[in-house]
């Protein structure tokens, strides 16, 4: 049955609009972006299982680690089988993850949440994240940054959808639950129904993406697009590099370092956003920034995280990938120095600096597929992107470790002052500097890593030609 989803059966007929592909990709990313909204029901899970913060937090960690691993391992499979089958498999894993998790909550078996949401859901995350990337790049050879920025913006938007939706669903399923009241937790049955609703709802939305996604014919070009002009830029190749060869190039590892540094630095802000703004403006015993205002700050960061993904990635089509990373990492360093030195002068200044930093964090994610396309070609860019995403998993561990390590030495977040954050922030300047140098060292991939010309064409890749 799965053969109906094969790449060769999803080649677009003549006249198929390429503008149907971004919403198909968004349908996937808006769903899997839910992973960053798990904090909404975390306390309810802790109360239901009578478990520790760590025991429940592990569910999220397993999912993120599985995201990186499955994206890396399944990348070549995704390239070979095409976006429709990959999206379908992703939807199945993601939804079954929720349903198995629901069974775990209903029966009080925490390990089923680890297995369901963490392991199975995490596989769905990884495959879903990379599934539309190479297809978008092939449909938008003239604007790859815009195309991948749109999709990866959806991942940021997914959390913005899931957070209020989960709160409203929990309130619907448990009338006694008040998400605005400190200490209020939803009942186990409300959590079960939340997981079932999300599992079924996300499956349906993702099927919409499955139905609409198509791969372009091998000889398809957008009207007025001249490949020779696009590849005349020094950092854009016409060659094809396989995923197996890509990992043998210094360029791959330099970009791995670039992504790792950019994500690590961004997490430095995102992880501690709420207590950080309160601590920065602490006077005497209390803070000039209320808990509600700090929550608003977190919301604002989400908007800039999402907006940065689209805006900066689109801008990279105009100014070039290498230059835009110079901006993310170089200006990012300046922003971090300013945050550490003058961030506490005014709340508005603090918010502005943090928003710019977080927009660079989002931009770094969204621009990476286009950077990879420029260097390695479109041949197996999805698989290469999957391998690079292991940097995200590594940064997800390293970023909080660095920040928490420094903060633990100074006291407890929520009781610190601006000075307590300074060492952590200045360390992030160093992290960004490493990424900045790595980006400057990126050069075109040497010819010895290129595939023979015929291999890079659609016919050999996966039966693109009709």
């Amino acid at each position, binding site marked *: 049955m799965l053969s109906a989803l094969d790449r060769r059966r999803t080649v677009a007929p003549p006249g198929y609009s390429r*503008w149907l592909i971004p919403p198909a990709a968004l349908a996937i990313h*808006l769903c899997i972006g839910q992973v960053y909204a798990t904090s909404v029901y975390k306390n309810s899970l802790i109360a239901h299982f009578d478990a520790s913060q760590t025991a429940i937090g592990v569910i999220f960690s397993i999912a993120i680690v599985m995201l990186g691993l499955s994206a890396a391992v399944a990348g070549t499979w995704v390239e070979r089988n095409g976006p429709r089958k990959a999206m379908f498999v992703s939807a199945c894993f993601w939804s079954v993850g929720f349903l198995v998790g629901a069974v775990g909550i209903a029966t009080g078996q925490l390990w089923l949440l680890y297995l369901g949401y963490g392991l199975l859901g995490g596989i769905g995350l990884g495959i879903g994240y990379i599934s539309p990337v190479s297809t978008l790049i092939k449909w938008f050879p003239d604007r790859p940054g815009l195309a991948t920025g749109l999709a990866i913006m959806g991942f940021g*938007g997914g959390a913005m959808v899931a957070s209020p*939706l989960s709160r409203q669903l929990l309130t619907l399923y448990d009338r006694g639950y008040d998400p605005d009241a400190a200490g209020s937790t939803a009942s186990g049955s409300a959590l079960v129904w939340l997981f079932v609703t999300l599992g079924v709802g996300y499956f349906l939305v993702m099927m919409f993406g499955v139905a609409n996604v198509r791969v372009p014919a091998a000889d398809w070009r957008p009207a007025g697009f001249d490949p020779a002009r696009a590849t005349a830029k020094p950092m854009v190749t016409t060659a094809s590099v396989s995923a197996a060869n890509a990992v043998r190039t210094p360029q791959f590892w330099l970009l791995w370092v670039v992504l790792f540094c950019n994500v690590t630095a961004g997490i430095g802000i995102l992880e501690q956003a709420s207590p950080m703004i309160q601590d920065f403006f602490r006077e005497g015993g209390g803070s000039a920034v209320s808990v509600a205002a700090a929550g608003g700050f977190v919301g604002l960061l989400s908007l800039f995280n999402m907006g940065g993904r689209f805006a900066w990635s689109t801008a990279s089509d105009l100014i070039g990938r290498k230059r835009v990373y110079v901006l993310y990492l170089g200006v990012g360093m300046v922003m971090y120095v300013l945050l550490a030195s003058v961030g506490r002068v005014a709340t508005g200044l603090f918010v502005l600096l943090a928003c710019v930093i977080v927009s660079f964090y989002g931009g770094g994610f969204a621009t990476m597929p286009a950077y990879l396309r420029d260097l390695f070609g479109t041949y197996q860019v999805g698989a290469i992107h999957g391998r690079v995403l292991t940097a995200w998993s590594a940064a997800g561990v390293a970023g909080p470790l660095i920040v928490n390590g420094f903060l633990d030495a100074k006291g407890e977040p929520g009781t610190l002052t601006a000075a307590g954050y300074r060492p952590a922030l200045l360390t992030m300047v160093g992290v960004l500097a490493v990424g900045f140098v790595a980006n400057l060292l990126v050069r075109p991939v040497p010819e010895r890593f290129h595939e023979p010309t015929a291999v890079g064409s659609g016919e050999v890749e996966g039966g693109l030609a009709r």
Partner: protein
Amino acid sequence: MRDGSSGQVGRLWVSWLLVGALLGYGVVETVLTAARLFTG
């Protein structure tokens, strides 16, 4: 964009409306939350 069929135009509208509605819902809810930064 080469588009001869009205079916495809409808599909385009439905596609963008669906993801636009989802994204719009998230953005509006988040803007309301973010507003607390200035009012809270």
